[in-house]
């Protein structure tokens, strides 16, 4: 399972997928979110390791 941190909450999801696939499974638009693993920015094509952790950061701001 992959541990996903997003907007202050934490969820677990089956691993063995790319960042883009993870975003899609969560209903997130890849234009609106960036992914960070171990403090480093990773591209949306990066394949997640099972039992890993990832932080998704919303990039939309303003009002």
């Amino acid at each position: 399972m992959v541990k996903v941190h997003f907007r202050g909450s934490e969820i677990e999801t089956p691993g063995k997928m790319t960042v883009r696939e993870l975003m899609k499974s969560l209903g997130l638009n890849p234009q609106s979110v960036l992914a960070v693993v171990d403090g480093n920015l990773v591209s949306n094509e990066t394949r997640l390791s099972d039992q890993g952790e990832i932080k998704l950061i919303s990039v939309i701001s303003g009002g």
Partner: protein
Amino acid sequence: MGVHRCRKCAAQSVIYMPQHRLALCAEHFLAWVEKSTLDFIAKHHMFEPLDRVLVAVSGGKDSLSLWRILLKSGFQADGLYIDLGIDAGGAYSKRSGEYVRKFWRTFAPESQLHVLDLASLYGKTVPEMAGRRAGGRKKLCSICGLVKRHEMNRVARELGYQVMVTGHNLDDEAAVLFGNTLRWDVEYLLRQAPVLPAEESGLAGKAKPLARFYERETAAYAIVSNIDYIEDECPFSKGATSLRHKEVLNSMENGSPGTKLQFYHSFLRARKKGIFPGYERPVLQACPKCAQATGIPGLCAFCRLTTDAEKSIGEEIL
């Protein structure tokens, strides 16, 4: 699809920008953003290398990234943070100010940071100012914009900065353009530009050096640069029209990369060619109280809002 390789060095990329068909590693992404910013500044004649530049910083990714880029590029760039007094149960302004100060200590210790506290200067925070008017959150956002524009302009002029810069990105600009186009608001459409020169009527020069980057690129720049910024949105921005416009545009962008870029740049080209010929901008006059430009006779909107304010400019160098 495998991981894209950096176009410059073939290392593993950290970002792929489909609208440019460009993948870059961390090092080359930073270099690309910085060079592109300098090119954009030069292309639009925003300011010169020896000009004093005032960066309006909010604690967010865009403005702090902009300050970082300008300092790395050798510009004399100082920061201005306006404490709007937004709390909403989460001490939003207080936390935003802490991110600004942390950035200043880490990346800009030789620059000046000017901090304006609205409550100290005018006796009211932005929510308190808005509380005196009907209109709810929409009114608050409009008053917040009015206050920020007035105070940034005032500080830039009084402290002798050649230009005031903000961290607006292409998504911000495209969302505003989208809204103005839906309403065919000609006055606002003609006023939207990456650079607005100083005017004798009392307006300082303004520029938006990051207006060529998508929002995810400015966020990526902040992350790769280890800039700690406030990720939360303003608590009063929830449900804002501009955010809905951003979602619509991002939805189109996802299906057709480059949509936002084309929308904004096509507008700039049309504007340059003279879109809406024959339209005349309202004549600006000086407010009798603050001397800033206003399109209406008598006190400007800011002075009408703060009629009980008699305090002079506050400048605190931290």
